[in-house]
């Protein structure tokens, strides 16, 4: 292990520690609500970057959020299944849908694939908002919160407060980040990155392109589903209107702003920062959110194409030139 590696690990450790201690510094429930928004956005952005690795620009991540949310909410309401199992069930439902869709559509390449994901997301939203089984336009209300859990050393802990939910989400984000990071660093990640560069060559080396594309797609969508299930039990309501195409586009912008160099860090950075500014702007005027996102993506595309992660490098280059 060389010096920079160690430095990176220490920074990462402090980051995680900081995230655990964050509510101590900002005990205001509204602030914690914002952090929850950041967490959900981070998971989605990480998934988006994971899918980008295989050369697919997904414009439909909101759909998988919705599938996870609706699955868990309906299971809890109609079958009385615990939200904790619902988290997994939501993720699994999203994963299975992603598997079925992925096997079919991931054969298509390039911008056509983006259009398909976009169309798929819109179809899912339409189904949720028109079928009575899913509550129609009104969505689902009165979804049960997370039930108390007996934890070792802490006794029975209630999970219906924003603070407790924050820690649940933090765990999900950390698991998601670790899985994505490990996947990206492993041989699997190298195969993912080889596919958009030269699929024929990868194939000639014994890589089954579709299989690896599906693996990446399903992993990303699984975590999106878990995040969706979490939001269902956190907000206790679901509206089809919160899964419009613009949400998927926000995910893309957040991820691009974060940076493509690292799936986990880029997604986390972009998702968190953008949502923080967004929630501040929402208090001022929701119309600024559009202008903000638009302006940020333009600036990033022109001046920082590698995202915020490349900012330190850019600064170093800039100061060296002087």
């Amino acid at each position, binding site marked *: 292990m060389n010096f920079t590696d160690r430095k990176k690990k220490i920074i990462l450790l402090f980051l995680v520690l900081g995230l655990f201690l964050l509510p101590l510094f900002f005990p205001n429930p509204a602030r914690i609500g914002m952090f929850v928004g950041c967490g959900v956005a981070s998971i989605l952005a990480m998934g988006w970057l994971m899918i*980008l690795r295989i050369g697919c*620009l997904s414009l439909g991540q909101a759909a998988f959020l919705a599938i996870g949310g609706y699955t868990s909410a309906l299971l809890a309401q109609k079958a009385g299944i615990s939200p904790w199992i619902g988290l997994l069930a939501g993720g699994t439902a999203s994963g299975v849908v992603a598997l079925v869709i992925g096997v*079919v*559509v991931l*054969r*298509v*390449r*390039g*911008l*056509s694939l*983006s*259009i*398909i994901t*976009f*169309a*798929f997301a*819109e*179809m899912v939203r*339409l*189904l949720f908002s*028109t*079928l009575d089984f899913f509550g129609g336009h009104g969505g689902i209300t009165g979804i049960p919160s997370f039930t108390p859990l007996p934890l070792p050393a802490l006794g029975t802990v209630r999970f219906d407060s924003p603070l407790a939910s924050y820690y649940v989400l933090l765990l999900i984000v950390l698991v998601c980040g670790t899985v994505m990071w490990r996947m990206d660093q492993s041989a699997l990640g190298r195969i993912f990155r080889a596919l958009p560069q030269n699929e024929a060559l990868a194939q000639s080396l014994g890589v089954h392109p579709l299989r690896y594309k599906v693996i990446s797609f399903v992993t990303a969508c699984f975590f999106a589903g878990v995040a969706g299930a979490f939001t269902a039990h956190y907000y206790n309501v679901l509206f089809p209107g919160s899964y*419009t*195409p*613009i949400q998927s*586009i926000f995910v*893309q*912008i957040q991820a*691009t702003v974060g940076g493509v160099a690292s799936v986990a860090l880029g997604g986390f950075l972009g998702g968190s920062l953008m949502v923080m500014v967004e929630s501040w702007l929402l208090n001022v005027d929701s*119309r*600024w*959110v*559009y*202008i903000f*996102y*638009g*302006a*940020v*993506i*333009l600036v*990033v*595309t*022109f001046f920082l*194409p590698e995202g915020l992660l490349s900012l330190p490098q850019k600064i170093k280059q800039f100061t060296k030139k002087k």
Partner: protein
Amino acid sequence: MTEFLQVGLNCLVLSANYILLALGLTLIFGILRVLNFAHGTFYICGAYVVYALVQRAGLHYFQAALTAMIVIGGLGIFIEAAVLYPLSEKVKVASLGAILGVSMILEGALAFIFEGEDVTIGSHFKGILTVRGATLSRERLMVVLLCGLIVIGLYVWIRRTRQGIAIRALAENPRVAALQGINIRFMRFLVMGVASFLAAAAGSIVTPLFYINPFMGGGIIFKALLIVAVGGMGSIEGSILAGLLIGVVESIGVTYLGPVAEVASFLIVIAVFLFRPQGLLGVEYEFH
């Protein structure tokens, strides 16, 4: 028969609008290799310019429509010069992100300028026509007619003129086309201008028909993208065919099945991609 005529006309109005947008998109895709997400926003901008000129400045509808088309055409050319051309050598993520940014800024700006309720202007062609018991409003007939004329004009331009040949050559193989002395820079401007012009035309046609709001572009661009995908990226005839197809399926479906029928458009797309990945009439493109 009566009902059929009515549904038939409704779907023509829908298709006509979609086709105008899809043609612009497919042209831009063929030459600029960009999915122009701002196209729906151009459409709404066009509609709002017409609204502003008619309602607030008191211009005649046709004057307003023409001004809107020219203004939005100019806007398209400006965006090509300022945003898309500088990014044309970069990866496709870059231009896609940038165009999304442009679209969102425009939408936000529209929301600030035209606050409040959704708006519309009074219909310009009054009266109805009764054909075999089906009542058709003059307005809608004119819309279909106007769109039809524009589409035919565009088709002739692409198929029969030297410029059209140059555009098709560029879409097929930019490098070889450039070797034949085709000015790529100029063609990009031309195509972007014409496409934005078409979007504004579609927008100004609907202002008297529907209520408009600044964020309507997203839903419209979604349909137009589906049409382009079904018809084949960069194919003019494909877009016209697919626009008719989706318009027909949608209005028949919505009439007899309700809003769920919109899902049908998606199923068509999936089916087309499975059996003909390049679209109904498209050729395979190399993406970079």
